[in-house]
C-alpha cells in the first residue's frame, strides 16, 4: 500500500504538467472579485477559481516528502534555501522530536521548502490574494470581515501562545470547507513579500511607497481589520529562507477549465 502511495507521488511529480486531477483533501473555491485590505492601489482584485487544501500540511505529510526528497532533509538542505531553524523541532533528518505530534501542522519550514513541497504534488502555494480571499470567510459567510466576532476571534488567536502544537482540523470549518486558516499557524504565501512593509509602519502610509500599513493608515479599505494588519506585518518581516515556529503552509491548485 505504502509503496503504491510513493509511486503515485513519483508519478505525480514526473507528470505534474499533465495531471490536475489530484484533488484529494482539497475543496473548490469559486473565484470572485473583492476589496482586500491592502493591495495594488487599494483596488478590487480578482481571484480565479482554484482548489485549496482543506488542512495545512502536517508533520507526517512533510516527513513523507523529505523521505522522498532527501535534499530537503534537515542536514542536507542548502543553507541558501533554509536558515538554521529549519525543522528544528525534528530529532534528525527523518524523525520528529518526541514532544511533537505527527498531526500538528509542519512548521519551521522555509518558503523554498514549502514551494517545493507543493510543486511536487502538482500544486503551488496560494497567492496573498487567494489566501486572504478564502480566509475572509467564517462558518456561514464568504466575507465575514464586517462581523465583530470574526475579527475578535482572530485577534484572540494572535494572543494565544503555543497554538502551533495543536492538531489540524480543530478550528471551525469555514463556508468553503477549509479548516485552520485562523487559529493554528501563520501560513506561507507565494508572494508573501509583494506587499512590502518596511517595518516603519507609520511611514508606509506614504503614497509614493505604495504601502498602506499601520494604524495611522488612512488608505486601508477596512480600517477596523486589525487582524489583517498583523498578517501583513508578519509577512513583511519574513525572508524566504526563514523557518519559524509559528509558520506553516498549505497548497492550492489551479482549475484549468474556464467557466
Amino acid at each position, binding site marked *: 500500500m505504502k509503496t503504491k502511495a510513493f509511486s503515485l507521488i513519483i508519478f505525480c511529480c514526473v507528470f505534474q504538467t499533465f495531471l490536475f486531477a489530484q484533488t484529494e483533501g482539497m475543496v473548490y473555491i469559486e473565484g470572485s472579485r473583492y476589496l482586500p485590505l491592502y493591495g495594488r492601489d487599494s483596488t478590487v482584485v480578482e481571484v480565479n477559481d482554484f482548489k485549496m487544501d482543506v488542512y495545512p500540511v502536517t508533520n507526517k505529510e512533510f516527513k513523507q516528502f523529505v523521505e522522498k526528497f532527501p535534499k530537503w532533509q534537515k542536514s542536507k538542505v542548502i543553507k541558501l534555501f533554509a536558515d538554521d*531553524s529549519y525543522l528544528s523541532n525534528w530529532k534528525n533528518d527523518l524523525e520528529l522530536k518526541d514532544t511533537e505530534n505527527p498531526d500538528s501542522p509542519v512548521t519551521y519550514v522555509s518558503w523554498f521548502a514549502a514551494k517545493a513541497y507543493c510543486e511536487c504534488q502538482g500544486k503551488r502555494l496560494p497567492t496573498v490574494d487567494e489566501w486572504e480571499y478564502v480566509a475572509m470567510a467564517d462558518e456561514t459567510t464568504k466575507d465575514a470581515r464586517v462581523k465583530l466576532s470574526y475579527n475578535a476571534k482572530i485577534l484572540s488567536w494572535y494572543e494565544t*501562545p503555543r497554538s502551533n502544537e495543536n492538531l489540524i482540523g480543530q478550528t471551525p470549518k469555514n463556508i468553503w470547507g477549509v479548516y485552520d486558516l485562523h487559529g493554528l499557524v501563520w501560513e506561507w504565501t507565494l508572494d508573501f513579500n509583494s506587499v512590502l512593509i518596511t517595518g516603519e509602519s507609520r*511611514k508606509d502610509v506614504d503614497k509614493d511607497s505604495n504601502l498602506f500599513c499601520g494604524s495611522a493608515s488612512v488608505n486601508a479599505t477596512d480600517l477596523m481589520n486589525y487582524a489583517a494588519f498583523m498578517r501583513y*506585518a508578519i509577512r513583511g*518581516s519574513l525572508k524566504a529562507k526563514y523557518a519559524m*515556529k509559528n509558520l506553516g503552509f498549505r497548497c492550492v491548485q489551479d482549475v484549468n477549465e474556464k467557466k
Partner: protein
Amino acid sequence: MKTTQKSKRKLKLVKHLALLIAPMFFVACFNDKKEEAENAAEIPVNQEMIAELTAPPHVPTPVGTRKAKKLIVKMEILEEEGEMTDGVKYVYWTFGGSVPGSFIRTRVGDEVEFHLQNHPDNKLPHNIDLHAVTGPGGGAESSFVAPGHSKVFSFKTLNPGLYVYHCATAPVGMHIANGMYGLILVEPAGGLPKVDKEYYIMQGDFYTKGANGERGLQPFDMQKAVDEHADYVVFNGKVGALTGDNAITAKVGETVRLFVGNGGPNLVSSFHVIGEIFDKVHVEGGDMINENVQTTLIPAGGAAIVEFKVDVPGTFILVDHSIFRAFNKGALAMLKVEGEEDKKVYSGEIRDDIYLPEGPGIQTMPTTDEIVASEVPAKSFEEQMEFGKQAYMQTCFACHQGEGQGIPNAFPPLANSDYLNADVNRAIDIVLNGLTGEITVNGEKYNSVMTRQSLSSDEVANVLTYVYNSWGNNGTVVTKEMVEKVKNKK
C-alpha cells in the same frame, strides 16, 4: 643659533595651539542648538561596554564621569501571560519581560549598538522606535524583526534627556496597548547631579474585553482602545505593581528622583505625589527645569524627571491626578518613607486628607439595586477566602493595606481590630453603605470617610470572611444570607 631654535619651537607650539583652538571657533559660528548636536556627534567613543538593563522600578547605575563608549544593548522581546490584577490575566508583549520594558541608561555621545531579539515562541514581528534616536523611524525600520530572529542597528545619542521607546509595528496602537514601551535616559556629560534614590515608573492604559475586575484571561479589546475607554490605568503594567510590599522606599532627608514615563497608548497623565511637592521637574524630560511643582503633565509617548526631598516619614501616594484613574482603574503607587517625624513640617495631628478632596459623593460608584453577582459563587470556605482576598486586593487594599494594618491617623486597621470583631452586622452594614465620622479602633481615634462599596452580596460575604479569618481576627464566616439580611433591614 640657540635662540632661533627656541623661537622655532615656540612657533610650532603656537601652530599646535591654533590647530586645537580652530575647531572651537568653527563651532561657535553655529547657533546654540546646532552646536550641541554637532558636538555630540563628534564626541569620540572608545571601549565597548555591555549596557546594564534593569526591570522597573529600578534603574541602572548612573553614568557618572565616564567617557562616551560603544554601548551594547541586548533587548529580548517576549509575549507572555501576566496578571493585571488579582484574578485577571492578560497577555503582555514586553521588551525584556517587564512592563514597562528594561530601563536603558546612556550618556550623550554614546554609540549604542542595539540588538533586538524576537523570541522564537512569539507570534508576531516587532520593532523598536526609540525617541532618543536621531534618524528615520527612530530605528523602527532597521529593527523590524520576525520571531526567532535578531536585528542589529546602531545610533549615537545626540541630545540629553529622558525618552520613551516603543514598538512601532502595525497595528502600532495594539503593540503599545499590550505593554511595548519603556524609557531610555541620555545623561549629559558628567551625569545628572547625584541623588539618594532613583526609581523608574511608567504609566499605561489597558483595554480588556471584560470590565475592570472581571476574572480570567482577558483579551485586548480593540474597540475600547479606539474609543479610548480604558479599563485599567496603571503604573508599571499592573494594578498594585508599586503598592504594599512592592512600594518604593526612601528615608527622611533623602532626595528622590523619579524617571516617569507615559506609554499611553491614549491617555495623558497628570502625575502627582500626594503630600509632596516636586522640588524640580525636568519638564517633558528635557533640559528645562521647573521648580515647586504640584502636578506635572506627562503626555502619551513622553516623560519627565521629577525630584523631591522627603522631609517627613509616612506613605506617599503617587497618582494620576485624573483621579478616577487612581481610585477606580489602578493608577496608584506608594512611596514609603521611614525616619524621624518633623512636627514643624507636618504635625501629624491634623487628619490626613489624602483621600478627602474627592469626598464621599464623588467616589461612590453609581449603583443599581441589582449588582451583577460574580459569575462563580464560592462553593467552599477555601474559595470564599480566595475570592475574598481578590476582592480585598481590588477594593480595600488601597486604604486598609495588604496586612490590614491601615494607615495611622487616616485609615483604621482591620488586623486585630476590636471594632471589627465586636459586631459583624455593623461590619456588613459599613461595607454595604459606607461610614463617615469618628470611630475608635484599638484605642485610636479615626475620623475619615469610607464610601459605600459596589460589591454583590456574594462578594461582601467573601471579603468579610477573608478579613475575619486573617490577621488575628475572630474567624467569623459571613454568608450571603447574612449580608442580604442586613441589606433588607433598610
